[in-house]
């Protein structure tokens, strides 16, 4: 048996995800999102999901696909503006939305991965984000106490990974993925390339395999660009 982390497909990897669960979903915008896992969730038809993810995708890509199918009960995000269906569900009250500062989101994931029950951050002091939260002063500066996230599954996208679950991310597709990988009770990772054990330099691994429970090589990555900005060649 051994560690037995490798799965043949998204469908094998996503086994056990059921309606009503809380999922962390990696990515920033459409960059570094677990495309295969999201597609699989659509197929599975699981509902009433709480998704912790910085953004909510666009109408026809990323978490937008789950929103189209009304599979999401609640989004916990920092910025959700790029999605008409999202807006409709939010305004109609079908979808619950908790907006939290981006750094707080990142740090609450990190706290879970580092075994810290809470963290203090100044973000949101004096704003409506502070409502109901403990405010505490250290060295003359006020901080909010924020709790570590608690997610049933984390869905993560990495560039390369090995059978032990060691992960390497590519460029800004890293974003929230390493922290979410560390934070999930069960962490499922899809990689563009599953490499042989020993192929990754131990010094270059961003996420040690101990955090990863299941890993598979994804297929058909679209890697859609949300804002294509270019400069002219002179």
């Amino acid at each position, binding site marked *: 048996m051994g560690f037995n982390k490798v799965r043949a497909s998204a469908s094998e990897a996503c086994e056990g995800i059921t309606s009503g669960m809380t999922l962390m979903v990696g990515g920033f915008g459409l*960059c570094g999102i677990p495309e295969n896992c999201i597609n699989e969730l659509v197929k599975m038809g699981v509902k009433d999901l709480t998704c912790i993810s910085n953004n909510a995708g666009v109408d026809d890509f990323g978490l937008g696909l789950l929103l189209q199918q009304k599979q999401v009960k609640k989004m916990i995000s920092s910025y959700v503006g790029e999605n008409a269906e999202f807006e409709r569900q939010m305004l109609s009250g079908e979808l619950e939305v908790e907006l939290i500062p981006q750094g707080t989101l990142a740090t609450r994931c990190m706290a879970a991965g580092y075994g810290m029950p809470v963290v203090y951050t100044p973000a949101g002091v004096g704003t409506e984000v502070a409502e109901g939260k403990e405010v505490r002063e250290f060295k003359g500066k006020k901080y909010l106490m924020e709790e570590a996230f608690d997610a049933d599954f984390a869905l993560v996208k990495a560039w390369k990974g090995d059978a032990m679950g060691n992960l390497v991310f590519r460029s800004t597709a*890293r974003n929230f993925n390493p922290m979410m990988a560390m934070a999930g009770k069960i962490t499922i990772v899809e990689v563009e390339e599953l490499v042989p054990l020993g192929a990754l330099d131990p010094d270059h691994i961003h996420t040690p395999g101990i955090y990863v429970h299941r890993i598979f090589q994804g297929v058909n990555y679209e890697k859609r660009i949300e804002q294509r900005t270019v400069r002219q060649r002179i």
Partner: protein
Amino acid sequence: MAWDKIGIAKRIAQEVQDGTYVNLGIGIPTLVANYIPEGMEVELQSENGILGMGPFPFEGEEDADLINAGKQTVTLRDGSSIFDSAMSFGMIRAQKVDLTILGAMEVSENGDIANWKVPGKMVKGMGGAMDLVASAKNIIVAMQHCDKAGNSKLLPQCSLPLTGIHCIKKVVTDLGVFDIRDGAFHLVELAPDVTLEEVVAKTEGKLVV
């Protein structure tokens, strides 16, 4: 002629110091990068995980894995580094970023800022703005002096939900440059051809000239 967006960006670029790390928000702040004086070394931080962000890529060289906090395709300069979102906001909280430049809907005379939410309208979220304003050592706001209805955005107190409190040190608008201290907007400089009278008329918060 008051400053247009480029004028505001150019004026703010004068505030940027050599050998510093700067985070630029979406909109006018992004333009500031274009007007940093030649020969000055400034590293741009993008809160999704870049230090040393470069210009947009040449057409055909866009990389879906390399975007900035505005989700735009960008490039990396030599000497850049990539990190995760926790480290990115860690360095922001630890005040390693020297200067943050961002837009606003309202700024108050005591340095409060509102820039993320209009009640009754679709709320997109605060993104990293609350983290940035709560932690940055030095924050400059780039915005129009008045909203589209002509109401002053430099107020005694913000009417919109706050992004952060007591944090804004300087505001650059189409009409001029204002330092915020001691509970007032201190006029530092008028934009070309803008009169003091116009600024007085359009500044609802306490103004010191």
